[in-house]
């Protein structure tokens, strides 16, 4: 890993780093002052585009390109939604950013609203972040008093207000159109796209949805310039014309079986193993890793032999994972059963499926039931084939669902079966010695049972 100056996390260790005075003393709101005085909105957009910034919310979509989809000369209003729903299991760095340095996120939000000509921004904050809520509301109040928010910001013609909208404990609200429906006061059912939010989003108006960390990056791009941003990270792969590269700093997290769970900042592209050893103290109890979830549960599994994978947007994909995701790694040590990983994952997605699409609603539930059966010592080898079939057939990628939740449900299944099938087969053979070869579906389904489909305490 090359020498590197952390910027996203620079304020986090300062006493009172969440207060306006401390933020300003470290150069805070300098970029906003300069942009409002010297740059037109299209210049800000252009700087973000040339920086190569890609969304940190999981999909890695180029931010400048997303903004450029907004209709030109729209009379408005245009909306900006800050995605702070952060519910991808294993992920917590947006929380750390908002709690520790809310002004960095707010400055990026104001700059991004200026670039996109948005007049109102909503921060969709998950319910379970009460400290982040308090810090954010306090910081917004400081901004209104200091003239960074409200009418004619810093004497310019630009006006903006930012409101916090609290979630209510549903993962699918993080999907951008589920988020929009939820703000509109409806059930958070993701919308069929197109139309994309940039054309018809919140309240049927053009809307941009960006992740907390993406917006924090915008602050530094405008402050330090796109060339600085592109000097960090990984350039495009010349053999792949569709790879826009992975530029900039990234906030990573590590949890699970490590010595020092926590967060840290590194250039995009640092190797998974290096991050775990250097920043998280390595695998706990002197053990080896069995597998690592690279960036939130949806992204699947890297096997131990794949831990030199670079943690950029392309690395985990090359290793068969869904993607970089959120960059928050979950380490599982050599003693942790892959079946337990699979069960935990299937239970999560069955619980969080919004139920609109049959393949997702039914597929996640059946996958959970198959895991329950195997865990109960009634597994059959054919159950692994059924699981694989579910993994291959639900999601946007096979084209059977409205949103990406189902792809996120599929990848852990695909990777567990693709990379650890021997372990799962061994488990089935030893726990069900007389029945592992059975194939008749009827008797097997009897156990999984329809009553209740999910145990009461699993339904939550």
């Amino acid at each position: 890993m090359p020498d590197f100056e952390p910027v996203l996390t620079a304020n986090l260790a300062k006493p009172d780093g969440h207060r306006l005075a401390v933020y300003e003393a470290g150069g805070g709101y300098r970029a906003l002052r300069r942009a409002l005085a010297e740059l037109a909105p299209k210049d800000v957009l252009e700087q973000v585009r040339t920086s190569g910034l890609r969304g940190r919310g999981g999909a890695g979509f180029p931010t400048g390109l997303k903004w450029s989809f907004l209709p030109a000369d729209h009379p408005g209003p245009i909306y900006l939604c800050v995605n702070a729903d952060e519910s991808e299991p294993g992920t917590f760095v947006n929380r750390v950013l908002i709690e520790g340095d809310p002004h960095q996120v707010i400055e990026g939000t104001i700059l991004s609203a200026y670039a996109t000509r948005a007049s109102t921004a909503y921060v969709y904050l998950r319910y379970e972040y009460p400290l982040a809520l308090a810090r954010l509301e306090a910081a917004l109040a400081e901004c209104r008093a200091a003239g960074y928010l409200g009418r004619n910001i810093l004497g310019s013609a630009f006006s903006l207000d930012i409101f916090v909208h609290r979630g209510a404990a549903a993962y699918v609200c993080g999907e951008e159109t589920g988020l929009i429906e939820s703000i509109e006061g409806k059930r958070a059912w993701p919308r069929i796209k197109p139309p994309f939010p940039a054309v018809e989003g919140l309240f049927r108006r053009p809307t941009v949805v960006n992740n907390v960390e993406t917006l924090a990056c915008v602050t530094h791009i405008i402050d330090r310039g796109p060339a600085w941003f592109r000097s960090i990270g990984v350039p495009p792969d010349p053999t792949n014309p569709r790879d826009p590269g992975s530029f900039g700093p990234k906030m990573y997290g590590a949890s699970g079986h490590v010595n020092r769970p926590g967060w840290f900042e590194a250039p995009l592209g640092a190797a998974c193993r290096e991050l775990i050893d250097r920043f998280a103290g390595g695998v706990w109890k002197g053990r080896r890793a069995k597998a690592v979830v690279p960036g939130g549960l949806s992204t699947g599994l890297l096997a131990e032999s794949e831990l030199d994978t670079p943690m950029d947007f392309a690395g985990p994909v090359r290793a068969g994972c869904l993607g970089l995701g959120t960059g928050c790694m979950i380490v599982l040590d050599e003693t942790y059963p892959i079946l337990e990983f699979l069960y935990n994952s299937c239970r999560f997605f069955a619980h969080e499926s919004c139920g609109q699409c049959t393949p997702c609603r039914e597929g996640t539930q059946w996958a959970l039931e198959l895991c329950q059966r195997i865990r109960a010592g009634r597994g059959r080898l054919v159950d692994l084939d059924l699981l694989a079939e579910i993994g291959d057939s639900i999601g946007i990628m096979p084209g059977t669902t409205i949103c990406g939740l189902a792809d996120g449900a599929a990848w852990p299944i695909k990777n567990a079966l693709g990379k650890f099938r021997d372990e799962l087969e061994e488990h089935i053979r030893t726990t069900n010695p007389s029945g592992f070869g059975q194939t008749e579906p009827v008797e097997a389904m009897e156990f999984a049972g329809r009553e209740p489909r999910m145990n009461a305490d699993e339904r939550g």
Partner: protein
Amino acid sequence: MTLDNDILDAIKSLFPRYPTRRAVVLPALHVVQERLGWVPPAAVVEIARLLELAPAEVQDALSFYGFFKQDRPLGRARIWVCRSLSCAARGGEDLLAHLCARLGIRPGQTTPDGRATLEVAECLGACEQAPAVLVNQTLHGNMTKEKIDALVDALE
């Protein structure tokens, strides 16, 4: 009226934030549940009247989020125990079982004395402090059975 003037004013103060009344549904439900401890069916009708919606529209949104309670008020402490992967890998499920036994209830239930409602949570976004538990507005990280017991002892 189930909703007193304070509650109605708190909801009305949110109107200027949104271009539609309907967008106030979720914030209004939060206000009501925070102040009353639940959202009784009568409150749904009153929220709907205030927001110029059909009660079914409010009920539809409410029922999507398992978060709002309609059968009875929540306990004074709502205890969310995370069961997602980072916590499960560090003993989260054992904690949950321990709490069930200690409180004598299952997830989703409230103790008869109204002290606590136990809930399973999916990832609380505090995985670096796994296993994590959220009690009302306070996060408790790196939980052990001993720490949970101390928490329960301190409940009012």
